[in-house]
């Protein structure tokens, strides 16, 4: 496994929550390599460890054993402040519930990663507007999230994940709250703007309708990667 060329390289990663009788093992020795520039989908039933794995891979959760390198760096070994800063610069997030700040406009929401990285407000919001243009809702830059449809909010969330030009974008169930047509449009958009030679996209989903957009699909079950397939389709159980 050439971890230097990989965006994410996990070897023997384990993670357990709780202790005693309430102990739950979420990851049981996961080996996974995500190649730079690909769109990898992480699929599997609820509770199989998908969310835990992307949390570890994105450096927001510490694993117990094994090794997980992100662009060759072991985030777990870093001091918290450095890890947070690195995450702010190199990783973009699209959350299942979007997590847009309800009192900020769309452009201001998109500008947040830039503000976190120290950019001035005006420039950050201008770039946020430009990013909204790229995801085709530039005309709604002044609207607060409650005035936007689910699909539009998802576009704002995608714009926010991309605005600071991260090398890795992590999406958690990006189409779970969208209808089929909107979900397809969102994935089209993701492929168009979020995937490229310098950007890797990891999508956690159990929405089989969007599997066709994946370069590779890793199927998890009971805390392990049980199958990795190249191509655009995976058989459903």
């Amino acid at each position: 496994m050439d971890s230097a060329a990989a965006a994410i390289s996990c070897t023997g990663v384990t993670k357990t929550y709780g202790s005693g009788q309430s102990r739950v093992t979420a990851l049981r020795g996961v080996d996974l390599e995500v190649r730079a520039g690909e769109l990898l989908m992480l699929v599997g039933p609820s509770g199989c460890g998908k969310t835990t794995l992307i949390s570890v891979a994105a450096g927001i959760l510490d694993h117990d054993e094994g090794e997980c390198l992100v662009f060759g760096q072991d985030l777990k070994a870093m001091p918290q402040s450095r890890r947070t800063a690195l995450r702010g610069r190199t990783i973009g997030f699209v959350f299942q519930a979007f997590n847009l700040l309800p009192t900020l406009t769309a452009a201001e929401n998109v500008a947040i990663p830039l503000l976190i990285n120290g950019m001035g407000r005006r420039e950050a919001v201008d770039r946020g507007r430009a990013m909204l243009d790229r995801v085709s809702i530039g005309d709604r830059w002044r609207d607060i999230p409650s005035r936007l449809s689910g699909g539009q909010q998802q576009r704002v969330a995608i714009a926010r994940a991309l605005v600071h030009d991260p090398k890795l974008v992590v999406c958690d169930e990006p189409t779970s709250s969208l209808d089929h047509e909107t979900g397809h449009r969102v994935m089209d958009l993701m492929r168009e703007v979020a995937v490229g030679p310098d950007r890797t996209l990891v999508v956690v989903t159990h929405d089989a309708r969007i599997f066709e957009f994946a370069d590779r699909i890793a199927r998890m079950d009971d805390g392990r990667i049980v199958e990795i397939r190249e191509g655009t389709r995976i058989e459903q159980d």
Partner: protein
Amino acid sequence: MRFVAVRMLVGDRARYFGILVGLTFASLLITQQASIFIGLMARSYGFIEDTGYPDIWVMDEKVQFIDDIKPLQDTQLLRVRGVEGVDWAMPLYKGLLKAKLANGQFQTCNVIGLDDTTLVGGPPKMLQGRLVDLRNADGVIVDAVGARTKLAKPPRNPGERSVPLAIGDTLELNDHRAVVVGICEVTRTFQSQPVIYTTYTRATQFAPAERKLLSFILVEAKPGVEPAEVCRRIRATTGLAAWTQQEFQDLTWNYFMKYTGIPVNFGIAVALGFLVGTAIAGQTFHNFTVDNIKHFAALKAMGAGNIMLLRMILIQALIVGLVGWGLGVGVASLFGFWIKNTELAFKLTWQILVVSGVAITIICSLSALLSLRTVLRAEPAIVFKG
């Protein structure tokens, strides 16, 4: 991220106003109760301030406060005048005498007798008439509030208002006729009795016959001589107590602080305001943070460090603190303005503003600390939990 913090705060109007209500209430209660307390306490030495002119007050050494009159022999006046460094010394009578009103009722009044020649120690402001009119036969000057209220004449017709005492009206002081020759404005006294000024000789005639009637000796130090040094000399030479004006005010203030329950009662009200403010504002601020915990966690996931989040929460605490404090102080000031012409005591000093500001800062700091603890403990991974 400052504007994000501000927008998160003010955008959630219900919570924002909830926090403001708590802080405004605390600030109002602390400022208003403290102002009433200071106003009330200032009345205890209001007469000393009104008398103004002399540097030094001389009295019996056992006197504990301004209304604790222990009369001196008239000869003490001459002894004080003989002390080195004394420029002049004048007698002052102060006593409670009963005035018989036109309706036959009696009203206890604070009668002040001024040196017949110099009239030193007169009221700070004359509204009608002149101070020198005290030299007219049976002349007295009455304070405006007393003339309007407790000394007022009965209404001309039933159901109408009482008629304020005016220049030319007469009243009886201890069976002696007194003619009103002026109306003055004075600081309200602690007991809120009407204040009547007259000459020293006339006051001693109004007063019941006693061996000693001299209440205080007002002394002015010679130019270039420190009043404190003159006080020391008077004490050493005569055995009487001699205080500078400020010292006598402090003596009176301290007596009321030590021997009355006033500070404790107001202290309880102020503490209650602080506690209620802390409870309401702290709880609401914490709820606001808990409600936004997913957003804070998202910010953490996106790379916002602890220092950044700390700053955001401090900015939010600063805003609600400043606005809440300002509103509370504003409402307290309006209250003070509204009761300006009533008998209620209210004195808003810059020290009270500082105290209420510090109290609100403590409340906000505690609230921010509580919220910060919640935010710093928040696991950013919760944003992936649907």
